[in-house]
């Protein structure tokens, strides 16, 4: 730790406290000759400063002053030196505050939910700032109490995990920057300009790239979707697929009956079905199970987006890696606090978690790139 004497001298000159000058020089001389007491180095911000001064610094200074000057310093002079040391201490605090870590308030929607908890842990391990955490679910609070919490904590930035905390915080806080993650389909929420984040869904580009890496021979992938919810997404997927030599055959569904009918049409045309989180397609549990059952009967492999579908027959799950989301959010927070410009308000998640069902791959007779097993997190046999 370096002591900024210029800063202290500046403080002294500004306050025109001439009496301090001489003892200040004495203190500086002592420090130069014998070094600062270890205790000062170890706990410069100790709240027990008066105690340390009385019981540690006073005898220390008196002792060393006597060694250096050969004279016993007057008590009043020693006291003045202590005042100077106190000023140094204040200056140290001041200097540390200016370069100190920023503080962050983490608002977790529900820490008992595994994905939120994992994101928080990864975030806390990576972020440089000091974190205060608050779990909305276990401390059931209303808007007023939350506003009070934010005002009392005075964080430099708020990191929200999950939709509920993100929506609530964005409603209450318009000035401080907010970073959000684990928010389903963030585009549907009218976030203000102070909100940044990491999206919760992998882009079509990532999913197609990974699917192609695992199954290089696939050329046609079918998608059931509703125009109402996923028109833009399907356009993006079609364009990304075209770039990689994959044809995305999409079928628009208007209601539940359409799902079965269009599935039958798609089954004849495509090498695999990509089941996306579309509210119309995945309207009910039964409907989802029917899709999986029909595809299994016709040996049509399914690519899914969530690990939960691995156990009901999806051949491959290409899901988002939650710890990476936490680490990305930490990086975003550090950048914002350092004042780095953000080219995009929401980052795409870049970590993937891949599950492969080798049992179904063999059952359907699919050509699978065995060398891609290196990126697989879980194998079902």
């Amino acid at each position, binding site marked *: 730790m370096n002591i900024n004497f210029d800063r202290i001298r500046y403080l002294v000159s500004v306050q025109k406290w001439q009496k301090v000058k001489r003892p200040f020089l004495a203190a500086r001389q002592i420090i130069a000759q014998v070094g600062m007491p270890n205790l000062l180095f170890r706990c410069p911000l100790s709240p027990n400063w008066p105690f340390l001064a009385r019981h540690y610094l006073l005898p220390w200074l008196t002792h060393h002053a006597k060694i250096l000057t050969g004279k016993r310093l007057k008590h009043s002079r020693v006291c003045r030196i202590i005042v100077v040391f106190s000023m140094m201490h204040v200056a140290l605090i001041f200097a540390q505050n200016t370069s100190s870590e920023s503080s962050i308030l983490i608002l977790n929607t529900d820490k008992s939910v595994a994905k939120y908890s994992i994101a928080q842990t990864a975030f806390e391990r990576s972020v440089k700032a000091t974190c205060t955490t608050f779990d909305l679910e276990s401390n059931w609070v209303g808007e007023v109490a939350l506003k009070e919490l934010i005002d009392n904590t005075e964080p430099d930035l708020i990191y929200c995990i999950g939709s509920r905390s993100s929506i609530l915080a964005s409603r209450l806080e318009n000035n401080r920057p907010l970073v959000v993650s684990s928010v389903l389909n963030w585009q549907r929420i009218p976030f203000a300009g102070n909100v940044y984040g990491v999206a919760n869904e992998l882009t079509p580009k990532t999913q197609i790239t990974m699917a192609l890496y695992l199954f290089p021979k696939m050329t046609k992938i079918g998608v059931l979707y509703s125009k109402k919810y996923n028109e833009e997404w399907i356009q993006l997927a079609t364009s990304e697929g075209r770039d990689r030599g994959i044809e995305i055959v999409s079928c628009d569904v208007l209601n539940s009956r359409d799902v079965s009918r269009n599935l039958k049409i798609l089954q004849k045309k495509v090498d695999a079905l990509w089941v996306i989180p579309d509210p119309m397609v995945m309207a009910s549990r039964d409907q989802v199970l029917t899709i999986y059952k029909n595809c299994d009967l016709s040996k049509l492999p399914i690519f899914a987006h969530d690990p939960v579908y691995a156990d009901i027959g999806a051949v491959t799950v290409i899901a988002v890696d939650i710890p*990476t989301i936490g680490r990305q959010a930490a990086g975003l927070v550090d950048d914002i606090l350092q004042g780095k410009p953000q080219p995009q308000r929401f980052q795409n998640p*870049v970590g993937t978690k891949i599950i492969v069902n080798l049992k179904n791959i063999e059952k359907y007779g699919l050509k699978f790139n065995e060398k891609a097993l*290196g990126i697989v*997190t*879980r194998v079902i046999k």
Partner: protein
Amino acid sequence: MIVCNSSILNTFRSEVFAVSLRWLTLVLLLLLVVSSGFADDLTPAVGTSFLTFYSPETNINNYGLLKGEFDSYFAGRGNFEFQPFSDSSNFDTFVKKKMNCALMIYSRYYQRIGEKIDIKSFLVGTRGRKSTQKLVLCAENSIQSISMLKGERVAIVASREYTTKLLIEILGQQQISLIESLEFLVVPNEIDALMAVGFGVVRGALTSDYNLANLAEISPKDHKLLNRLATSNDILLPLIAARIPNNANTEKLINIIEDMGNNLEGRRRLNMMNLDRFQKLSDADMQILARSTSRGTDQ
């Protein structure tokens, strides 16, 4: 009176019995506690040879998968167990304690562990018929030189500490301030790291030349966005080493590992570690190993 005496006797007997029972329980408990101290040595079947694995070079997030898969492969082939480690100190302690184990480690770690115990390398992993790989530091096209990467975020798959050491080796000591200025984003695999550059989340990525070539095949557009800034020397893929003198069971384990690349089930397990097979070290491999150990990079 007799009844009374016998009842006293019975009470006395039952008390003696209760006391002895208590003592017996205590002795049994003590035995249990004492024996649990040796549990580590006793739990595996006698004569079990371990294939221990530690890799600071990769962000392994599938230890459970690897353990299950390798154990099931070894199950029908003898008394062997796969033991992966995420922490170097636990790995070191385990390896020091067990004589009957083979080690799956990268060449950099081979030197470090070799300073503590006597080990010998037997096999080296191969991928695409090559036993070496190069690490490549690449960045988005707008970054034309290393100096332009200062203070930027780079996607990596290894630990931060390990990556820093690796970058010092690739870029040289003169770039140490630049390396220290870098921010890192740890991602699950190298394809993710390379694609993160395309998404603008990071400005650079440190990956193997093998996965850079893979990206060129599966996403040529993303590959075109990348610019190679620096490349490492040849680095050996994981080695299979064993403590010397090794016992017959460990030798058998090494033979089984060597044979893994010859059957589908074995090859699949190796593919999970981004390898095709293990083979004996050639003279060229030995030279690379000697070079990397003489450089003295640890961990």
